[in-house]
């Protein structure tokens, strides 16, 4: 026996590894204890992401869930709207933290966070979509978070289940805020210790090119905007579990000020939102947009806009934004 091993150790080892990987690739499928849609641990293809080890991280750090696009989530072009995508990103993030044991009241807090009245708030969100899913498509949303200088950065990857193609990527930055004083808070070791073990380390970024420079990507504040709309009020359905306007509602408001022909004939390729101030249900919001033209702007094929949302009649910013539109390939506008 000893002799056989010495003859070809590398071959036997490689053989065992090959068998192991062939069998175990689909091993971990987790069922949450409270009957929620199952989370599946699927190894991330490393070619999509910049750095990071090729070994799979422990369970719970990478969380993945499948969603089917429902009929009311698609827009006039029969594809899922960006609000649907943003909702699914939020849903998979909420489900991950619920699986990890954070609070389920919508604030995703840990024990010591609640002791200090701290909640997570998002300050920036960046979504890029290569393609949108259609009604009935199954979409796999994978999410994880990693530590940042002052908080965490949560990344997502969206794939089509049937074809395996990547539909889009997203990233967001989160900091802690004191619920009572509404001021940002530093994270001390006690608090960090409660979520630190679920953060992906070494980090992997959905936008590797963005990571080094994201701090410099502060969007400019608009002063005079060519597109302008006022009187936007939050609806009942825009309020989330915490009675603040849900982040996704801001996306709709940002796009309201754009001319309808652009919104209908183009597809949203990328969107960045920088959240400055939260919005209550009785606020009235003004949405402004201005064309942002980099040097290689050409005709009607692509448009980029800078956006600003602010309280009607005041200069208090709620949100800054940037959108990138690309002309839709087939203009399938079928009448009913």
């Amino acid at each position, binding site marked *: 026996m000893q002799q056989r091993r010495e*003859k070809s150790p590398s*071959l036997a080892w490689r*053989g065992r590894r*090959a*068998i192991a990987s*062939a*069998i175990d*690739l*689909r091993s971990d*499928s*987790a*069922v949450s204890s409270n*009957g*929620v*849609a*199952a*989370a*599946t641990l699927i190894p991330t293809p490393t070619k999509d992401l910049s750095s990071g080890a090729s070994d799979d991280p422990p369970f719970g750090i990478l969380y993945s*869930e*499948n*969603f*089917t696009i*429902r*009929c*009311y989530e*698609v*827009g*006039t072009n*029969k594809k899922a*709207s960006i*609000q649907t995508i943003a909702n699914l990103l*939020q*849903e998979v993030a*909420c489900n991950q933290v*619920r699986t990890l044991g954070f609070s*389920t*009241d*919508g604030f995703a807090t840990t024990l010591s966070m609640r002791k200090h009245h701290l909640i997570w708030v998002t300050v920036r969100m960046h979504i890029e979509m290569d393609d949108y899913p259609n*009604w*009935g498509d*199954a979409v796999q949303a994978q999410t994880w978070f990693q530590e940042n200088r002052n908080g965490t950065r949560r990344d997502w990857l969206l794939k089509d*289940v*049937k074809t395996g193609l990547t539909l889009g990527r997203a990233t967001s930055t989160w900091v802690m805020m004191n619920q009572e004083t509404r001021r940002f808070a530093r994270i001390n070791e006690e608090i960090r210790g409660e979520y630190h073990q679920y953060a992906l380390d070494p980090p992997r970024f959905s936008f590797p090119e963005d990571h080094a420079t994201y701090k410099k990507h502060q969007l400019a504040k608009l002063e005079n905007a060519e597109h302008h709309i006022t*009187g936007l009020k939050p*609806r*009942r*359905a825009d*309020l*989330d*579990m915490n*009675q603040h306007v849900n982040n*996704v509602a801001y996306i*709709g408001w940002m796009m*309201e000020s754009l001319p*309808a022909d652009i*919104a209908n004939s183009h597809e949203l390729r990328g969107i960045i939102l920088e959240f400055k101030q939260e919005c209550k*249900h*009785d606020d009235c919001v003004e949405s402004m947009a201005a064309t942002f033209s980099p040097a290689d702007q050409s005709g009607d094929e692509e448009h980029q806009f800078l956006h600003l949302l602010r309280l009607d009649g005041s200069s208090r910013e709620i949100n800054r934004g940037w959108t990138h539109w690309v002309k839709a390939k087939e203009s399938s506008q079928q*009448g*009913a």
Partner: protein
Amino acid sequence: MEAAASRFFGSTISRDGPFGSGSLKCQHQHECSPVVQCMRDLVSSVPKLNGSRTHISSSESLKATIPNKSVAFKDYHGDVNDYIPLLAAAIIAVDKNKQQQEVSLRERSAQMKRGRLLENDLVYRQRFVIRSYEVGFDRLASIETLTNLFQETALNHVGMSDFVGDGLGTTHAMMRNGLIWVVTRMHIDVDRYPVWGDIVEIDSWIHGAGKNFIRRDFMVRDFTTGATVCRATSTWAMMNKSTRRLSKIPDDVFAEISPYFLDRHVMEDDACQKIVKLDDTAMYVQKNLVPRLHDMDMNQHVNNVKYIGWVLESVPQALLVAHELMSMTLEYRRECAASDIVTSLTSPAPSESSVAAMSNLKELGPPDIGNPVITTKGSLHYTHLLRMQDSGCEILRGRTVWRLKERFSSSS
């Protein structure tokens, strides 16, 4: 129902969502390593081994030397060179098997987005998980969420039948006649609202209602407990696509759809009390409601569910902390285009003369969780109207009944 679920999902009684791929466990169970199993299969099927022509008999002799179940693979004492190609072939076969399973798993997941047909293929059943963004500030799913799920269930039901597949449930005969379905009435009775993470199971079927209407009924149950969540019925008529006028159901269309009728009613028809048309004397008025960009559905109309949101916009918000919607009746009169501006009116129903129902809650401001407004222990009745702001044309009439939420009604 549990037995049906287990039949559907195979041996695992799954508490998972209807389309989480983790809910489908691999069906093959191996007593020994899959590689060894594969090797045995290979040996018995492949006539050629090690580059030399061999017959079945020699492969059988080789098979005799392959360890059986009772001998562990590591105790095999044969020549290394014999089993390297077998090992390689086995690995390839296992990998291919896994890939095929993955493909069929994906296909099955793709199919599982839809539910299944029961009872002679007349009842359609589908499960949904309530998502976090579908619940309101009180953590309960909103009535819009439930109505959206009805819409999805109905469309998936007709998707399973041999209809045109345009997303509207049009049959071939309807297309020939230039007709489309349009909803004229909707009635929902809610027993218990689901919360984030709940799995609901919706059953839906259709039955005739006279010569000109059909009814689609919905029965929603909590999948985990089996308790009824809500029941709903909707009335549908035919409308001419170009003239936008209601029309009778032609005989050929009726012949196409009547095989799908199931004569079962999810609720008794209420005596169809006439809903009063409100005017400017209504107690609560909300103006300047406009369809937003994403309110348009795939058919470029304002989605039916958005009307519900507008109806509830004019309900005094302070009511919403302690009260929940028990039942809602909507009568659709006219559709709304993207460029219309809508006014929503609400008034306490005149038939309910309780003092509390007449009290004006307008001044009480936004819902305050810490300070619930409770005016009466009984139910509150309201009448609603949606109309075009400019022309005054009626879009829909509604009636709602509200009751105290469970946690408020038990106290004192």
